[in-house]
């Protein structure tokens, strides 16, 4: 078991080695404004038995949890996903037992996981992989689980460390099949925090106090990092370091918000408001590079709401919503079933957005106005559809839709571009990365909910109020429907009986006789 703790500050913020104290108790320093990432690496044999079974039966398993609270991150710790609980999974062939038990194992660890079996609840990705997503507001159950597995005392420093996960923005659990180790990575948002890490006798702890850097030799496709590295219990002072690497995830240095247009009705439209129509901060320098860059939104939609791929295929319609087209959608998505008749978790949508008026933009760019003016806010609208939800008290049901992940993807223009070399902060298996070719760079746009007065929390979810049948008013539905149908039926039947009694059922060939009978009656 070993641990890596990384603080990453923004460009220009850095610490002198003298500001940091290293001693037998650990490392400490001043308050810094930084992102903190903790990574615990656990060997297979150190895992509890249920997890050993799980990861040997399904080595290709990635669990990602993202908080609904809006948070800021710093390059290169950028990769974004919609808030909630994500799982990507490929069962080893012939290991049905793992699939069968997966959901209950997940529920043991994470608490309120509402899948039943992968066959019922998961969606298919390519090449035998499955995806699962659900809303999960907190990982308190996971914290309890981790504490019971890792800590000897209920109130010791170990418990306090794990308790701190309650303020984390994201949690990643992935199994490395080459080294047979499990990596658990937690990330805390960019904020002011005290620099302090205690050492543990049984644990090798490496601490990095880094900041993004832009050395002169840095190439456009690279991210630069500099700072101090310390191995606790081994180093007596931090050693300065500086390195650069090609990163798949970059910072677009712009933001977006997502909101449903009112009224939502049964066909809500999700409006994405982006602050910039430029892929990334470097884009004005090299237009050829940005030609292959397009904005995308990656959505994980709970089953109560879905996109209709057929509706999103007409070019005129798409253009009117500032969309280019669907790049991916879960197959199949039932277009008719009510929510309560479905077991699949929902669906994934990757849609390419279309920033308005690129020609006007480029001509303005050439005039070299200042950067603030060049960034132009624009919106794209994604039409969605609600399923019928189960009847409820009051006539409305509320559920929340997570913010999408929004990014500009710059795909390599030539064939055969090499994959990114591994880097210490690499993140893959995010659901959307596999939908692009090797060598694609993702420029992440930060989700930033609109500020709406005091008290409205900045959550990365939008609530939808769905009109449903009000069970409190449903008492008379059975009787009333039956009565109306009976009355209508009786009326029509009565008319038929009267026809039969007055004229019989005989047809036109006996017309003469009928006429005579009618005359008699008059």
């Amino acid at each position, binding site marked *: 078991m070993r641990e890596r703790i990384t603080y990453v500050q923004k460009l220009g913020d850095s610490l002198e080695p003298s500001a940091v104290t290293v001693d037998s108790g650990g490392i400490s320093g001043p308050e810094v404004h930084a992102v903190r990432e903790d990574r615990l690496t656990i060997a297979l044999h150190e895992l509890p038995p249920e997890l050993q079974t799980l990861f040997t039966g399904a080595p290709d398993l990635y669990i990602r949890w993202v908080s609904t609270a809006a948070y800021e991150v710093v390059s290169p710790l950028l990769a974004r996903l919609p808030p909630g609980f994500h799982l990507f999974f490929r069962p080893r062939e012939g290991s049905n037992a793992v699939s069968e038990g997966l959901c209950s194992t997940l529920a043991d660890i994470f608490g309120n996981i509402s899948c039943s079996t992968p066959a019922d609840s998961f969606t298919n990705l390519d090449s035998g992989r499955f995806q699962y997503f659900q809303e999960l507001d907190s990982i308190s159950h996971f914290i309890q689980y981790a504490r019971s597995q890792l800590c000897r005392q209920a109130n010791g420093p170990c418990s306090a460390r794990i308790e701190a996960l309650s303020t984390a923005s994201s949690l990643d659990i992935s199994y490395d099949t080459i080294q047979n180790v499990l990596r658990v990575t937690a990330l805390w948002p960019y904020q002011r925090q005290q620099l302090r890490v205690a050492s543990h006798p049984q644990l090798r702890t490496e601490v990095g106090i880094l900041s993004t850097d832009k050395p002169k030799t840095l190439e456009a496709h690279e991210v630069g990092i500099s700072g101090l590295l310390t191995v606790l219990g081994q180093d007596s002072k931090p050693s300065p370091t500086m390195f650069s690497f090609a990163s798949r995830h970059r910072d677009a240095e712009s933001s977006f918000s997502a909101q449903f247009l009112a009224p939502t009705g049964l066909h809500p439209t999700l409006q994405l408001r982006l602050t910039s129509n430029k892929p990334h901060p470097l884009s004005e320098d090299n237009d050829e590079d940005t030609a292959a860059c397009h904005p995308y939104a990656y959505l994980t939609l709970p089953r109560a709401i879905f996109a209709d791929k057929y509706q999103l295929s007409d070019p005129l319609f798409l253009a009117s919503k500032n969309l280019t087209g669907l790049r991916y959608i879960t197959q199949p998505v039932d277009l008719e079933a009510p929510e309560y008749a479905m077991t699949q978790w929902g669906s994934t949508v990757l849609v390419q957005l279309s920033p308005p008026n690129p020609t006007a933009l480029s001509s303005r760019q050439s005039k070299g106005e200042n950067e603030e003016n060049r960034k132009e806010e624009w919106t794209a609208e994604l039409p969605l559809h609600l399923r019928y939800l189960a009847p409820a008290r009051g006539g409305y049901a509320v559920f929340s839709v997570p913010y999408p992940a929004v990014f500009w993807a710059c795909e390599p223009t030539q064939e055969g571009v090499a994959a990114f070399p591994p880097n210490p902060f690499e993140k893959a298996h995010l659901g959307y990365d596999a939908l692009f070719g090797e060598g694609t760079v993702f420029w992440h746009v930060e989700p930033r909910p609109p500020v709406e007065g005091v008290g409205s929390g900045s959550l990365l979810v939008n609530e939808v109020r769905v009109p449903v049948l*009000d069970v409190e008013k449903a008492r008379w539905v059975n009787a009333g429907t039956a009565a109306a*149908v009976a009355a209508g039926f009786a009326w*029509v039947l009565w008319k038929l009986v009267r026809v039969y009694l007055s004229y019989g059922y005989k047809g036109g060939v006996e017309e003469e006789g009928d006429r005579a009978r009618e005359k008699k009656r008059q």
Partner: protein
Amino acid sequence: MTKPAEPVGMPSPSATPTSTSLLGSFFSRPTPVYLSAAFLRLIFLLYGLWQDANSPVKYTDIDYLVFTDASRFVARGQSPYERETYRYTPILAWLLLPTAQTTGNRLIDAVLFSSGKVIFAAADLVAGWLLERVLTRSMNGASARKYAAIWLLNPMVATISTRGSSEGLLGVLVMALLSAVVARRITLAGLLLGFSVHFKIYPFIYAPAIVWWMDADRIKTTAPGSKPSEEPSLFKKLLAFVTPARLQLAITSLAAFLVLNLSMYTIYGFPFLQHTYLHHVTRIDHRHNFSPYNTQLYLASAATAAAAAAAAADSSQPPFSSAISLPPSPSLGIESIAFLPQLALSFVLIPLALAKRDLPSAMLAQTFAFVTFNKVCTSQYFLWYMVLLPLYLPRSSFLRDKRLGVAALALWIVAQGAWLQQGYELEFLGRSAFLPGLWLASLGFFLVNCWILGIVISDVGRGPKAVV
């Protein structure tokens, strides 16, 4: 893909014969009538092309995109059922195969893509011509054309077919069936009946009406000497019921139906059965529509799902406990017997009481009853009876008593308008209008329809016998 129900206008009674000289000369020859009908559809078709090309809101019906997608699959040698929500016979996709062709020339491609709509619009015209033919059996050509114009020159009918809805095809099939029957062309009638039922199931209700109508007096058998002089026994009556003509109709229609279904099953396998027929058995019909059962079905489907979920949760316990605590089985709701009043009226009672008196009007009453009492009802279904309306109107008390006619039309429109208003509040404003608004509106519309149906039935019973 909920389809917002469109308002539907019944053809106004004032559009029917009130002879002024100008109108008289318009209807005196067929050419002006059919030319105007064709021109009306051409205008709508061209307008639709313009709107589709220039507006994100499309003129073309979503169903047409389903058909043409399915045709594209067929053109690539695949099954039309690869297209989700394609719930029709493969013949429809075959019929629209030209729409799957592309040449690269935009103009030609637009024409090819619209070819299905042209077929539907042409079907309208043929249905109108068949209407005229049936009507001329009891009136002169000009009057017949005036009544047929209720269908031919009806903007609603023209809109539906040029938007690409296939319901117009049903109109021509049903009219062809009726013309074949009244012309005593039994084999043709049988084939058309089998084909219609294969195409859209509901025309099966016409089978008992036609069989009841085609008695030995109407269709003379080859053995006229066998008429018994004394009162026949029940057995003899039953035997007499089985006339050669009836047998011929039964065999040909069944053969057509079976041959078509077996061939489709051979080609496309289970998906054909699943999507064309079984879907109608398993569908939940929880979405709001005009049917009086709608709210009840929504409630019941959610209760069934909840019970199933409870049962599933139970079965994850040891099997022992699930055997003891069975989930409360949903009570026998009226939705499970909803087909009884519907079929009693449209399949049995109306044919028995009315078919021998006036077959076309009886078929109108049957269709009206079938649609009114159906578990699902959308405005497209109204077209099913609209095609038969011109055959009944000449004898209807709605035309004889103008006040009654206007009242019926007004009630029909107001009741539907009330439902549409509630539906709009639900679908577009997101207001929980299910109860009581939408529910009461659908019951109100249902009762208005029943009232109209009652009058239609009385009219058919009372009125002069039709010549057919």
